[in-house]
């Protein structure tokens, strides 16, 4: 049991109010007006703001490690543009310092994803930022999606000597393998036993619509191509980055496409990122696009995700919605809206006590609680 009292609660799913949280076995037992049983360890929030843990919906923590060269870089299996059979779980290092920085910044969960060098890059997972040496102890959901990519990255990595070398090639390579996976799945369903093929086997949940394909796309035309492909194959899918989504915002809103937008803090690093910035993200929000914010850690450090939400606010999005874009909306994006992202009874006790307004870059996460346990306390135990 753990209690947080005297808090200014921002539950995200409902309006802010004063109150506390009662936590048992890693879950929120009571929220708001709570009754604290005797001898319950209690943190006095002293009127500080308390929010759900921040969620980074798209990142490469553990795969592209902090402060290490190629030895710690396991994000892109560049041997072939189609690698659905590789899994983030086999590359993510729980000891990557990024997770510590996450805890210190109030980021309690993240979706770990292979990079975007490949058309189909591999299986993703969602991890809590817990301190452990066993990745399995961090995992909330696996697989949480299958990484895919369009646009510049695959064609830069493989072209011009090898396909894909163009955007047409990107789509063609994707179609080719989805076609094959469908044929393979059909054969299996028909009782034929095709020769075992690990690549096709890994794609079955994708072509059957069980596992979302999470498609990296920046430019508006790449977004259109992603939608075209997803529709053709009736995929479950989400879009990742969506830098120029404002140009096709109505379509995205109409089709209720899940979009993880970002990293909006970064400069126009590539041609396909022209116009990158929070103004575009804000336009998407205003158009009603289903939206969460990502820093694409390490492209922008995940610990700056609350600051990014602040910049979204500065671009004209109401603060509550900006906060939602890094909590509940992010949880929904990764398929865990029922477990995380808000301070509701029954949800995981991922909680942050802030030194100030969480959207002000000058604020600190004073206390970070993951699954009911104190994972970070600024200024040592005395701070709790």
């Amino acid at each position: 049991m753990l209690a947080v009292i005297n808090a200014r609660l921002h539950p995200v799913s409902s309006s802010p109010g004063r109150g506390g949280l009662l936590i048992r076995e890693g879950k929120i037992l009571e929220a708001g007006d709570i009754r604290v049983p005797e001898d319950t360890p209690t943190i006095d929030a002293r009127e500080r703001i308390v929010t759900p843990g921040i969620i980074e919906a798209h990142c490469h923590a553990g795969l592209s490690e902090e402060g290490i060269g190629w030895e710690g870089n396991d994000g892109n299996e560049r041997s072939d543009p189609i690698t659905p059979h590789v899994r983030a779980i086999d590359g993510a290092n729980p000891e990557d310092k990024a997770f510590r920085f996450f805890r210190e910044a109030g980021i309690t969960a993240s979706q770990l994803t292979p990079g975007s060098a490949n058309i189909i890059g591999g299986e993703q997972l969602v991890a809590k930022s817990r301190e452990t040496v066993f990745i399995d102890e961090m995992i909330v959901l696996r697989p949480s999606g299958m990484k895919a990519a369009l646009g510049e990255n695959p064609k830069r990595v493989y072209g011009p000597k090898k396909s894909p070398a163009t955007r047409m090639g990107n789509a063609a390579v994707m179609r080719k393998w989805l076609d094959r996976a469908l044929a393979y799945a059909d054969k299996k369903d028909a009782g034929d036993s095709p020769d075992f093929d690990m690549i096709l086997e890994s794609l079955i949940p994708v072509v059957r619509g069980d596992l979302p394909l999470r498609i990296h796309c920046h430019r508006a035309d790449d977004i259109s191509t992603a939608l075209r492909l997803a529709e053709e194959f009736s995929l479950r899918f989400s879009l990742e980055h969506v830098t120029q989504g404002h140009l096709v915002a109505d379509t995205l809103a109409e089709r209720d496409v899940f979009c993880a937008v970002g990293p909006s803090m970064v400069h126009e690093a590539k041609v396909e990122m022209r116009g990158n910035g929070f103004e575009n993200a804000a336009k998407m929000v205003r158009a009603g696009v289903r939206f969460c914010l990502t820093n694409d850690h390490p492209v922008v450090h995940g610990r700056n995700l609350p600051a990014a939400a602040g910049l979204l606010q500065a671009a004209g999005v109401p603060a509550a919605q900006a906060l939602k874009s890094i909590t509940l909306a992010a949880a929904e994006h990764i398929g865990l809206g029922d477990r995380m992202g808000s301070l509701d009874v029954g949800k995981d006790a991922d909680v942050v006590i802030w030194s100030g307004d969480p959207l002000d870059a000058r604020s600190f996460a004073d206390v970070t609680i993951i699954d009911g346990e104190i994972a970070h306390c600024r200024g040592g135990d005395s701070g709790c």
Partner: protein
Amino acid sequence: MHAYIGAKIYPVDGPPIDDGVILVEDGKIAGIGGDLPIPDGVEVVDLSGKVIIPGLVDAHSHAGMWGDGEGEASQDGNERPGPITADVDAIDSVNPHHTSFASCREGGVTTVQIHPGSGNAIGGLCFAAKTAGEVVDDMVLKAPTGLKGALGENPKRGAGKDSPKTRMGTAALIRDYFARAREYGRKRDEGKSPDPDRGLENVLRVLEGEIPFRVHAHRSDDIVTAVRLCEELGIAYNIEHCTDGYLIAGFLGERGIAAHVGPGLSSRGKVETANRHEGNAAILAAAGVKVCLVTDHPFLDARYLMAYGGVAQKYGLSFEDTLRALTICPAESIGVDDRVGSLSQGKDADFLVLAGEPFSFKSPVLATFIEGVEVYTRPTL
């Protein structure tokens, strides 16, 4: 509803109309004529002294896929590894926000057939689109409209390890791939499900007559090889560029082939274009070839397609044929003449307002309309 009155109209599928009227409703031409009653409540636009022609149709363009100062990151025209990339589709490479579409609108080009590049012996699917929009899928007029093929220098310059080294090799590759497609189709028809292969399926669409093979060929021997191959395979086709066509005009004319002649205003940068001649279009047209003037954008900037028409006319193409070569002929060649290429009731309201008679520097495009919407207005510098 809008009524555009007062201009001289070249409908292309009928005689010119002095002081004509075009009625536009819901993006379509609701009426056109010299003495047309204007219904009440219509917004009237007076274009006295101006000239209206249909929006230009460019049968060979790479708009949205490369060039125009975009640099290497936006080179999406040739799926290099080749030599056969029949499985790719040009639509997946087209960026509607690319400046090339603005160039098209400025030049009066309202419909383009976008091809993959000519780096590969079989390059991929072509499609037809309007030149204004945010999402390429919404701009599509027809897809696919053909399968791109290439002969001559480009495919043998290919970077792929299997790329052909000679013209003989290119022809052999195409023959072989079409044979495999036939085999694939036979298996499929027999109910044996072959491993899915989009490339072979796209070629089957050509073999089954759904779409034509559109073959890039400059030199006369390449053109003849294209004819030989396609006749042998029994498929519909046309010739792209057709630079040496005038040297074998009779051979092409007796077959009634469509030739997409261009890019205009270019120099002779390659050996296979050494015989380039400005009179090519006129000679081909006289021989009965269906001539379309094309930009091959970006190689001729679409802004200057009208100037190219002027040069073709200068070298003997009649005024009417020049106008047709930029409108209805390419519309027919692409298979979209039910909607564009001329101005008649029921067709899309794609038209240009010119300052005067076409094909002079004195009559630039003042405004471009696509489906009734003014998508370009000439600025003052």
